[in-house]
């Protein structure tokens, strides 16, 4: 028997991705792929999505020059792709809204989502309120504590937030619980996975709905500067923001860099740097680079950023990295806080802790002789105020 999928489910030379899902979810995943393929070639769906992205999300987001920060760092030019200016404050809404439209088209009435930093949860809750779908968001208890404003926002939008106590109480456990909930209710519910991970077709779905970031940024760079930068730079947790920005630049002669969370140390459990620390494995339905112990048990991770502490890299981004199309850097908690401080003081923009990891590698790039950078500012930092206030990096 063939798998029944029509789109490629594997990425890169090592065949990352795949569909390692329990049998209960196979038919729902087949149905999802079929609906996605049909919607992709349906002008009515595309028009609806485009209108919502313009009128509800606030796209296109600006490409903002950051000349004062560039001068501080010794860069000739620095441009910020402002996903922080989308409705709900991060790139997550691009995918959440598109999947919610797809779910409605499939006749689903209930939405399940997981969230780490809470940005995907807020975006999904908002999209569900807008489309009249009921919404349950699974969130680890550790993340609920450190991203409390987002929990409040989800609840204001009418979503039910289900605390997940297991393990470290972060994104990995939230995904576990969301997958379980979906298996129990897959006839009525659609699971809006928030990052480019999970079983096929999720990585492809999420990447497709996020590449609007890079498509806009590329056109804006050409229009505003007349040329493309030397480096395009994004932070990477699961990889939806990284892929969304970097994929549209894959054919261009420039460097593409993804930044992982270096946490507070180099040992297993002290960071979320999957390229150096990870080995090939299967988690949450896909084969990819995974932080794990010798027994194949998923390792704990650490990052000041709730959106970057996922133990696996999304399979497509991992494949692009392993095949040499994307470089990887890591930024520590301290470096991220310093990156945030620089942007606040030089440009009057408060970045999310996730985006701060991308900012954190700018000084090193400048020292290495890079002169022009386009950076994906994936989200705004309001949700992180209490962390910024508690740490010396940004005082308030």
């Amino acid at each position: 028997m063939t798998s029944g999928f029509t789109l490629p489910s594997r990425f890169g030379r090592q065949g990352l991705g795949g569909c390692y899902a329990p049998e209960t979810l196979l038919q729902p995943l087949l149905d999802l792929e079929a609906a996605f393929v049909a919607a992709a070639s349906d002008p009515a769906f595309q028009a609806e999505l485009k209108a919502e992205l313009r009128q509800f999300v606030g796209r296109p987001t600006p490409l903002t020059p950051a000349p004062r920060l560039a001068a501080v760092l010794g860069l000739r030019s620095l441009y910020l792709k402002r996903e922080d200016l989308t409705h709900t404050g991060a790139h997550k809404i691009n995918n959440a809204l598109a999947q919610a439209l797809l779910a409605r088209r499939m006749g689903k009435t209930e939405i399940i989502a997981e969230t780490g930093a809470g940005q995907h949860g807020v975006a999904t809750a908002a999209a569900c309120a807008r489309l009249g779908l009921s919404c349950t968001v699974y969130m680890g208890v550790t993340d609920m504590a450190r991203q409390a404003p987002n929990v409040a926002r989800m609840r204001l939008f009418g979503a039910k937030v289900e605390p997940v106590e297991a393990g470290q109480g972060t994104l990995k456990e939230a995904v576990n619980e969301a997958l379980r909930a979906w298996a129990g209710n897959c006839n009525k519910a659609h699971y809006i996975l928030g990052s480019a991970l999970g079983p096929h077709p999720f990585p492809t779905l999420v990447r497709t709905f996020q590449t609007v970031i890079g498509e806009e940024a590329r056109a804006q760079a050409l229009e505003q500067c007349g040329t493309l930068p030397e480096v395009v730079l994004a932070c990477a947790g699961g990889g939806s923001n990284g892929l969304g920005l970097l994929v549209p630049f894959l054919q261009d002669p420039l460097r593409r860099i993804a930044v992982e969370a270096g946490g507070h140390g180099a040992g297993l459990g002290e960071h979320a740097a999957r390229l150096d620390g990870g080995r090939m494995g299967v988690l949450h339905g896909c084969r990819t680079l995974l932080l794990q112990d010798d027994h194949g048990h998923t390792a704990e991770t650490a990052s000041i950023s709730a959106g970057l502490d996922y133990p696996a890299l999304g399979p497509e981004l991992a494949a692009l990295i392993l095949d040499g199309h994307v470089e990887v850097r890591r930024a520590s908690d301290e470096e991220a806080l310093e990156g945030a401080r620089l942007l606040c003081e030089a440009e009057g923009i408060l970045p999310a802790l996730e985006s701060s990891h991308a900012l954190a590698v700018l000084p090193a790039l400048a020292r290495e002789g890079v002169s022009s950078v386009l950076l994906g500012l994936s989200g705004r930092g309001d949700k992180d105020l209490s962390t910024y206030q508690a740490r010396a990096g940004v005082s308030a």
Partner: protein
Amino acid sequence: MTTPRTLMNPLLPFIMAGDPSLEALPGILSAARALGLEAMELGLPHSDPIADGPVLQAAAHRAIQRGATPRRVLESLAGLTDSPDLILFTYVNPLLQLGTEALLRLLAPTPVKALLVVDLPFGEEPAFEADLRAAGYPMVPLLTPTTTLDRARGILSDRPDPGPEAPFAQRFAYVVARLGVTGTGQGTDLSPVASRVADLQSLGDRPLAVGFGLSDAASLAAIRALGATPIVGSALVQELASGLDLRTALLPRWTPAT
């Protein structure tokens, strides 16, 4: 469809390796054998059991805390002859990390006869699955409420019945009785299961075992009456964890074949 079937095996219990302890495992298996059980599912604990409910999650967590790594579990089974046939019930990543060669070496001296890998659809790891099958460790096919009959036909032929000469552990298909994850607490309405089992029985004479949400003696008897083997997992794991011995836990649920 209406032909009464001979029930190949009246009960398929599930226990989690390393819970309550790895040291207790040989004793539990020999007690199972003494009861007359032909086959048993043995959970190999995983850190992220996405198809398991709270009881088996907690059991896996306890087992891992106590050091029940895949290697140690399999080593603790080496040389056991006083055991039912075992079906190793687990997730794919711990097996991939061991690697085919080491896994086969570890399996060889154990009573394991088949594997049930919850998150491994046929075709995702073709070489791995083919090597295991060739070495005598077939994958148990899983059929769930979302599996259409067409799909079920495909799955049963991808992971075929080795035939009446083979032990139950290598022949049966696992029928998941309801949507969701493992665990007790299902309502007592077994009528959807009955029609589902009848539909699947119409596809051939593959022995079927039915699990997810079964625990009390009446539900187990109802499954047997359908000509299928009931699986009891979470309820048993909970009882063993609370100190009950296997014999006491299983006796009320056990009707030896006549």
